[in-house]
């Protein structure tokens, strides 16, 4: 019986890892796109990006998740709860990623941009070769923080019925009447978040540069 619980618990951990990985990837891509839109010359795109970020800041992530999970079937798009959760969590964290990257863009010295412009580089060229690489390196610590918070936020997918660590520990707790499983769940989040911090630290050290 005990080993059955352990097996299901490890399965839940696997689901949390998949969920976090997919949604962080989505959040990074969408976040970079939003950050670029926010600083581009076209004012409607800037306005759209601003609206998106502020709307996400003003929405509780659980309300967003519920709307996506219940709403997508109403649109006739029948995905699994897992896919809906990835979408909702990824779109939510994208707003925070874009804010972080924007802060990184502001940290690039204006002289570099002016030098690039005086060489006749285009907006896209400046962003791609000069601004974004430096901006991302500068904000790796805050991206690390966002990723760690994000891994913990994936626990709300339990409400949508995805059997990740939190949902599994809740079910096992009911079946076995043993609340120690919750402590196990807390420890397994540590097992996931601490190496994430190490991972980003390693990237930071590898990408370190002197300005």
């Amino acid at each position, binding site marked *: 019986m005990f080993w059955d619980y352990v097996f299901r618990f490890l399965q839940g951990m696997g689901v949390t890892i998949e969920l976090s990985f997919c949604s962080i990837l989505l959040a990074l891509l969408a976040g970079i796109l939003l950050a670029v*839109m926010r*600083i*581009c*010359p*076209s*004012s*409607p*795109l*800037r306005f*759209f990006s*601003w609206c998106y970020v*502020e*709307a996400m*800041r*003003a*929405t*509780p*992530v*659980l*309300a*967003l998740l*519920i*709307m996506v999970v*219940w*709403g997508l079937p*109403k*649109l*006739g798009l029948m995905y699994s709860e897992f896919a809906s959760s990835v979408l909702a969590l990824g779109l939510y964290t994208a707003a925070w990623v874009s804010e972080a990257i924007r802060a990184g*863009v*502001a940290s690039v010295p*204006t002289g570099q*941009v*002016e030098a690039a*412009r005086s060489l006749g580089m285009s*907006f896209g060229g*400046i*962003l791609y070769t000069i*601004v974004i690489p430096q901006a991302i390196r500068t904000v790796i610590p805050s991206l690390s923080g966002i990723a760690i918070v994000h891994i*913990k*936020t994936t*626990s*709300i997918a*339990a*409400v949508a019925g995805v059997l990740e*660590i*939190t949902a599994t*520990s*809740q079910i096992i*707790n009911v079946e076995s009447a043993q*609340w120690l499983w*919750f402590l196990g*769940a*807390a420890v397994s*989040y*540590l097992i996931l*978040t601490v190496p994430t911090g190490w991972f980003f630290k390693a990237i930071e050290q590898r990408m370190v540069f002197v300005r």
Partner: protein
Amino acid sequence: MSENSLLYERPGPVGLLKNRVYAVAGGAFVLILLWSVIFRLYQRGQFDHDRWSVFLNTQVWGFLLNGLYATLLVAAISGALSFACSVPLALARISENHLIRKTAEVYISAFRAVPLLLLILFMAVLLPTVGFAWPAMAFLVVALTLHHSALLAEIVRSGIMSLERGQREAAVSIGMTGGQSMYYIVLPQAIRTMMPALIGQLLAIVQDTSLGYIIPYNELLRCSQLISTYAPQSLLQAAFVSTLLYGMISALLMVVQYKVKTRNRAVANMA
């Protein structure tokens, strides 16, 4: 928005044309996406009268506003409690006593590491078994306070650390004790500089009360779902309306945060 305009030349006639083309293309893409979502919802009858007519009922609104009240009540109580706990925690975190400092560190890192949802579920299971047969609201308040006091303590600590050392040294040199200098000199200034971050944390607390949904505590999100047991066709509509209500509260706090931030900047520029 204009702070980054250094990134590109002021567009000439060709550039303006290009920007306009991009804007039209981007705008068209967004509009088509929005329109296809709205059209599909329309096709599936999500805008029909009987799906929205629930919100013409004053009793339904009374129920929703009760939920909003429950949300704000929990947010206010746990916000006040977390702030009250966070200042001593932050002071313990920078204490010179090794034992006190370590205890605060363990508390802060433990409650920052646990997902809030897990903590709420855990409290709802643990507290009754050890003899606290409280209502669901109390579990929510306890969990929110434990989690957010740890987060707030880090904000308060960084606020204290960001203040110049000289302030404290000057206070001690005119004969204040350590406690007095903290209470009269350091904390008032630190709290003023970290006010935007504190308001941001209050915003997070308001939004996190929605996790009370699962214990279950009848806050706004749960109420909106309960409406759909009375009017099953309005499930999505109720969730949408409750999200709008959350959005209004959040927007209010965000405006206050912005005002405080600009006022702080103005004060800093004067000095």
